[in-house]
């Protein structure tokens, strides 16, 4: 049945998982308690965020004069950070949309977190143009709505306004795409939840998802169409961001290569950030089985390609600047003048981090190594920040009039806001990691049979002894069990009465008057029929089940006659012990 996948493809779900294992693994970070590392990281992020909010409040209260801007360099860290964050966002959409169109199965292990990263990064990006307006309470002037100035409209010829539309469309569409994908996974958490508050929250956010065949059919088509829409959308967003520069007449900005070069750079930096986040997350949240070496290597390949495009763009800019022979081109951000001028360190930081270090990924040993990948990803994050810094500050630092030449130095407010957005970003991401299903588990389940290593192994080497843990039953095996259930048991014989009494004697009786019966179906292995049978015997509560030992299991088996050994295998007592609390 359509689960074939070429043996040459490496498995992307390792560790002999079953459908149920996937649910358990994805729900574990949500159902468990936060560990110390999480608490420390969250505290640091929260402090950074609050510092940033303080710096923003100071800026708004006093005016953007508190930044290090001057007459010549009138855009600096704020726009650098804006472009940096929005670029980081691009990887999420690329992974979830473009890779969906290309039917890349490995996207499923990472798309959820990459999309979360996108949304949180766009939040940070959006802050900068808003606070750069100075009078943030007038931000609604960017929207074409009637205001107290009469029918004065925004200027639709301006790339800055295109940006407003592009980014708000991007943010809202990404959010909807993300949330729609989350519905079945929230539903899984909801149906597993044992605490009433948890159940309430996940019922609310899962929008009552029930998983009907028709719902799934629509879900899949909607996902596909959203991917088709998001793909040109994500390209348009960074294209339009690049227009902010490319449509101006500043040397170094006025460049037709900007749109494709910005898009490639955005994907490059976004994948680096995905690597940074997921390499930590797979360890902390025990997701090594779903975010594997294959995922890391594939992302490194994308980094290599987009890094290559960026490098070629650097070279062509450098060459064209020199080839024009124009003296104004000798102080643009990619020129001999920049490489040897006062901003030589920024120039070389860009070249080293973006063009040279990523070339290490050509070596297979390095691009399949987690530590190396992490280090290189950090360098790329830094390098891509410098790219935007160079484009903005180096180009503005020298102009047509040498008497205006100047440099930029950030104030503590500039630094505070930047650090604050990082704090804000990690606050959101850490909260996400504890409360959201971080793997698109429904999608991962749908590829388990084609790409799970146990299934691949059995299919490719049918002579191997299959692992006994595989519980997916074959038809003929289950029929006999079904007979047992259906002809469920007559429990009234004298012999059984005696056994029942001895069973209840050791696990305790249940008083219907004073006690509330538990939903025994929550124990894996107990279905509605088995629950009824247990109730007939007089077992209603987790407390009773949790007291069962080998002796009681055997008694139970001899009373019901069905599923011999099943209760012991599934460890009902252990499960009930957990459910009790």
């Amino acid at each position, binding site marked *: 049945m359509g*689960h074939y996948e070429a043996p040459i493809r490496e498995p992307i779900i390792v560790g002999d998982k*079953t*459908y*149920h294992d996937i649910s358990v693994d994805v729900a574990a970070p949500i159902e468990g308690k936060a560990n110390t590392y999480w608490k420390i990281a969250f505290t640091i992020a929260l402090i950074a965020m609050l510092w940033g909010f303080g710096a923003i409040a100071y800026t708004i209260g006093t005016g953007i004069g508190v930044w290090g801007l001057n007459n010549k360099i009138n855009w600096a860290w704020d726009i650098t950070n804006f472009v940096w964050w929005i670029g980081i966002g691009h990887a999420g959409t690329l992974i979830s949309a473009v890779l969906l169109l290309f039917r890349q199965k490995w996207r499923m292990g990472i798309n959820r977190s990459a999309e979360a990263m996108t949304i949180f990064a766009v939040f940070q990006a959006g802050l900068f143009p808003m606070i750069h307006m100075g009078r943030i309470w007038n931000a609604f002037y960017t929207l074409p709505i009637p205001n107290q100035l009469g029918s004065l*409209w925004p*200027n*639709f*010829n*301006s790339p800055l*306004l*295109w940006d407003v*539309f*592009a980014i708000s*469309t991007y943010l809202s569409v990404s959010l*909807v795409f993300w949330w*729609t994908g989350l519905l*079945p996974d929230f*539903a*899984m958490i909801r*149906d*597993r939840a044992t605490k009433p508050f948890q159940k309430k929250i996940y*019922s609310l*956010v899962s*929008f*009552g*998802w*029930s998983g*009907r*065949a*028709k*719902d*799934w*059919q*629509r*879900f*899949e*088509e*909607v996902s596909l*169409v*959203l991917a088709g829409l*998001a793909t*040109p*959308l994500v390209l*348009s967003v960074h294209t*339009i961001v690049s227009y902010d520069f490319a449509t101006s007449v500043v040397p170094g900005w006025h460049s037709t290569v900007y749109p494709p070069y910005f898009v490639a750079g955005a994907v490059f930096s976004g994948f680096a950030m995905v690597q940074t986040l997921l390499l930590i997350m797979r360890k902390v949240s025990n997701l090594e089985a779903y975010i594997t070496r294959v995922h890391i290597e594939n992302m490194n390949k994308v980094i290599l390609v987009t890094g290559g495009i960026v490098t070629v763009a650097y070279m062509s800019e450098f060459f064209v600047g020199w080839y024009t022979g124009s003296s104004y081109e000798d102080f643009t951000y990619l020129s001999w003048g920049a490489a040897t001028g006062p901003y030589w360190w920024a120039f070389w930081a860009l070249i080293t981090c973006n063009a040279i270090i990523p070339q290490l990924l050509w070596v297979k040993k390095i691009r399949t190594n987690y530590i190396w990948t992490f280090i290189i990803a950090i360098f790329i994050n830094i390098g891509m920040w410098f790219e935007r810094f160079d484009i903005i500050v180096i180009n503005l630092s020298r102009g047509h009039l040498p008497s205006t030449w100047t440099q930029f130095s950030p104030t503590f407010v500039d630094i505070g806001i930047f650090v604050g957005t990082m704090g804000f970003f990690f606050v959101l991401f850490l909260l996400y990691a504890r409360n959201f299903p971080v793997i698109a588990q*429904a*999608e991962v*389940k*749908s590829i388990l049979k084609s790409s799970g290593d146990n299934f691949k192994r059995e299919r490719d080497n049918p002579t191997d002894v299959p692992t006994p843990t595989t*519980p*997916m*039953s074959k*038809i003929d095996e*289950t*029929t006999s069990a*079904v007979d047992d*259930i*259906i002809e469920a048991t007559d429990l009234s014989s004298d012999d059984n009465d005696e056994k029942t009494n001895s069973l209840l004697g050791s696990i305790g009786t249940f008083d219907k008057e004073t006690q509330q019966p538990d939903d025994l179906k929550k124990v894996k292995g107990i279905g*509605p*029929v088995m629950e009824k049978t247990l109730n007939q015997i007089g077992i209603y509560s987790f407390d009773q089940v949790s007291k069962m030992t080998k002796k009681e299991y055997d008694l139970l088996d001899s009373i019901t006659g069905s599923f011999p050994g099943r209760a012991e295998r599934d460890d009902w007592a252990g499960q009930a012990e957990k459910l009790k609390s």
Partner: protein
Amino acid sequence: MSSKVIHALYDDDDVLLKAVKDVREAHQHIEEVYTPFPVHGLEKAMGIAPTRMAITSFIYGLLGLAFATWFLNLIMIQDWPQNIGGKPSFSFAENMPAFIPIMFEMTVFFAAHLMVITFYMRSKIWPFRKAENPDPRTTDDKFLMEVAVADDNEEFLTSLLKKTGAIEITVNEKH
């Protein structure tokens, strides 16, 4: 027509798919199938008509494009023409190249959001709505087929479903 349904639970998607085909071949009516993930080929096996979500999206996209064209013309040409950087504002056609980004964004905005809203409305999913999957395990690793019971075929159905490999079979009142 009785008001009873049979719930047959499966623990494997391929077994379920085969079961759906068998039940349909026996001319029994499958009310609903609940699965934890999209089982490919299921809607075809159940005989569900293709979804028209993509078509609605296309129409919404056209609507967005028309809306953008209308308001850009109103704002930039009719209501308050401005000379900005020498870009011609005498007619929509002349000024249009500068509007392409916004027209594109509005097309995507309408196509995406209105389609998703349509999906939510049609599938009846929204905040505060109660889930209707009859067994909580159907979002985890089980697959549930709901078959309508006609006047006196309960036993026949039970034995049929048993043969298809169901791991649990229960008879319920229709909700």
